[in-house]
């Protein structure tokens, strides 16, 4: 039992160990290879890294709860883009003209409502049709992206509100606004997964669906709630990011679903559900962002970065499988 506890802790800690390794590697390698003079572990650099982790990080948190539940959501990138369009465009709608800067919370709410509603639609289809979430959200990924293009064609949707930009660029207590949102969401989702009946049931459903059904847990509604949560978080991620940038291209957010899944898997969440933690996902997000930044710092280009991240992902899953082998008695494949 002691061994198993240690193994469990080791696994949860693995992602943090990996992050430490990255920090050491890039600090040392940076001394020889870096083109810039600044140290890699410079405070401003690290704060920026956290801020840049936020858009995918917030989505990855939602992906964690959906994957723990035994589902997956491929439509988050499209929800991200559509919510951003709603956020920026609604601020220019004539009906809100008299509101002044009060249009900001209204637009935020509209964007968040959009994301939640799109997530709810995903969840409702998965629940009522019983079609696999992979297929349902693959379809809605295409569909929602189609809506983005229908809205404004190939044109970017832009609207820069300086009050909003100030808000997004603020650094209360040293951390960027986006970082605060990332940390806040991590805390709330951790609480939700570990402290509420809904969270524990989400684990149970992903772990052993039949046992959950036998125990009268209503699987469908729990799944739908989780899809609403990830939809909400995708919209929140968009709201935070585009408050600052003020312009969204119809292809923005493409592949975000895959980056989010990568972060979740690196964090040790089981693809089949039942096991995972948002804290580890947070680690996974940081690890990916560190790799990107670090490889850039030592002079690698984007293509190399993607190649390395891909290789590391496969290596991590291979290690995980080796650690989980049942021993010699298992059937050979």
């Amino acid at each position, binding site marked *: 039992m002691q061994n198993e506890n240690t193994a469990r802790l080791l696994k949860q800690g693995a992602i943090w160990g990996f992050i430490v390794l990255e920090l050491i590697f890039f600090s040392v390698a940076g001394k020889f290879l870096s083109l810039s003079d600044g140290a890699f572990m410079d405070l401003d650099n690290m704060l920026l890294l956290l801020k840049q982790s936020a858009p995918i990080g917030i989505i990855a948190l939602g992906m964690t709860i959906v994957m723990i539940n035994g589902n997956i959501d491929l439509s988050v990138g499209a929800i991200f883009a559509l919510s951003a369009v709603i956020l920026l465009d609604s601020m220019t709608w004539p009906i809100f003209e008299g509101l002044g800067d009060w249009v900001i919370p209204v637009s935020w709410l509209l964007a968040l409502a959009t994301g939640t509603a799109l997530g709810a639609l995903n969840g409702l289809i998965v629940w009522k049709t019983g079609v696999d979430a992979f297929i349902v959200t693959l379809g809605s990924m295409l569909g929602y992206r189609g809506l983005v293009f229908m809205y404004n064609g190939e044109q970017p949707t832009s609207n820069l509100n300086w009050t909003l930009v100030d808000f997004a660029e603020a650094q209360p207590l040293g951390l960027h606004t986006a970082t605060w949102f990332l940390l806040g969401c991590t805390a709330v989702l951790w609480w939700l997964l570990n402290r509420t*009946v809904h969270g524990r049931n989400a684990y149970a459903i992903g772990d052993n669906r039949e046992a959950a059904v036998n125990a009268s847990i209503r699987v469908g509604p729990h799944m739908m709630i989780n899809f609403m949560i990830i939809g909400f978080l995708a919209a929140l991620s968009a709201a935070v990011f585009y408050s600052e940038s003020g312009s969204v291209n119809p292809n923005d957010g493409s592949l975000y679903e895959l980056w989010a899944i990568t972060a979740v898997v690196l964090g040790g969440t089981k693809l089949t559900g039942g096991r995972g933690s948002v804290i580890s996902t947070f680690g996974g997000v940081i690890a990916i962002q560190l790799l990107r930044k670090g490889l850039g710092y030592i002079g690698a280009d984007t293509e190399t970065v993607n190649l390395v991240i891909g290789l590391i992902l496969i290596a991590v899953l291979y290690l995980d499988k080796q650690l989980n082998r049942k021993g010699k008695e298992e059937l050979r494949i």
Partner: protein
Amino acid sequence: MTTESKPALRLSGIVKTFPGVRALDGVSFDVRPGEVHALLGENGAGKSTLMKVLAGIHQPNEGAIFIEEEKVVMRNPLDAKAKGVVLIHQELSLAEELSAAENIYLGELPRKSFGRVDWATLYDRAGGILKRLNCSFGPKTIVGDLSIANKQMVEIARALTVDAKAVIFDEPTASLTDAEKVVLFDVIRDLTARGVGIVYISHRMDEIFTLSDRISVLRDGAHRGTLITKETDEDEVTKLMIGRSLDLTRNIVAGELGPVAIEVQGLSCGKLYRDVGFEVRAGEVLGFYGLVGAGRTEIAETLFGLRAPSAGEIRVDGQAVTIRSPGDAIRLGISLVPESRKEQGLILGMSCKDNMTLPQVGDLTAGPFVSDGAEIAIFDQYRDKLAIKTPGWRQAVGNLSGGNQQKIVIGKWLSMQPKVLIVDEPTRGIDVGSKSEIHALIRDLAKQGYAVIVISSEMPEVLSVSDRIAAMYHGQLMRIFTAAEVSEDSLVQAISGIGAGKVA
């Protein structure tokens, strides 16, 4: 024990039919508070159906269920649990990544405001139940880290979250060690001391005689009698179980026996089976009889290279061999017709021909392409040889009857020219008419000089096809009976572990 008190649970005249089968035919049965009532029967006698009726999974077509003499209808397992009847499944139904406490109260987690889990209450209650069961682990332990025996304790603990009147154990010791069994029996005795009625389903005669107060025997869906444990013995129970005056004349004419085709010595595979030794000659059928989980299929999987043995030697044609993969096995002339036709034996959407030639399609080529002609030639040959009824080679295998599907699998392996053919549960899910046809086919194959190993859980089947019968109990090869020695009583006793001595 207390014969006067009214039964905790009583069934009266339960009839349950499935399309084409009368699974339960007017079964009446009761369990009193504080009593262990064992339920016995061969595979297919109706035990599982009865249990599912008791637990509210199936609704009976006729008859009534009474709890403390009050008529009840159990709509589903939760309803049954609420009324005080709990089923402990043979296959555990637990969420492995969650704590013991969460599993015990799965679906009924105590709540606080804002949908929060009331952990204090949860751990307190679950801890209390685990303590009552004398469990060595706490409520916060992750279930996946527990041994199978302790997982079973968690399952049992679930029964105690309500005021259970009757608890049904379905083959609870199937995967337990002897030491773990002792603990389980203590728990059961403790439950009875608290006035809970226990229905104990098992195949294992020794356990039943240690534990039970009364024994009821089911055969062919009907209740054949209830015996007081103290006043009966194993012979009487065995007779009641077999009952039928068997019209199974063992008209096996032993064919010409050739040389030893395959020989196994001291073969072991971890906990699955230990120190198994046997030989099969060309022209002979060796039957393996035993309960589900006795290790028979695992031996077959080892011989076919699917499972690595932990010790022992396999000789094929007198040569010691190492079989690392099914490819190795096929090259050595060993073929396996697996237990589960639809999951392991066939690709249901593919045509008869494609299924038949699957293992050798790489050799049936003309240049870089698969040769339809060569494939069809093989298909035609074995269709005629095995009398497979199919509209044509294009037919998807999924559309054939069970018997013909099985023949396709057998044909597939015969076409690989094996010396040793292992057939695991040859007639599972096959109707009676085709059964005898498959049996005749197996005899015929032996006559043609194949060494055949048949694994079966049905006694009539092993008796009617085998020259010799190996009886397995709990991973041990108890005895190999020759045709002259074998009797139904001795077989039942061998596979129930009677005379097994102490199993380590």
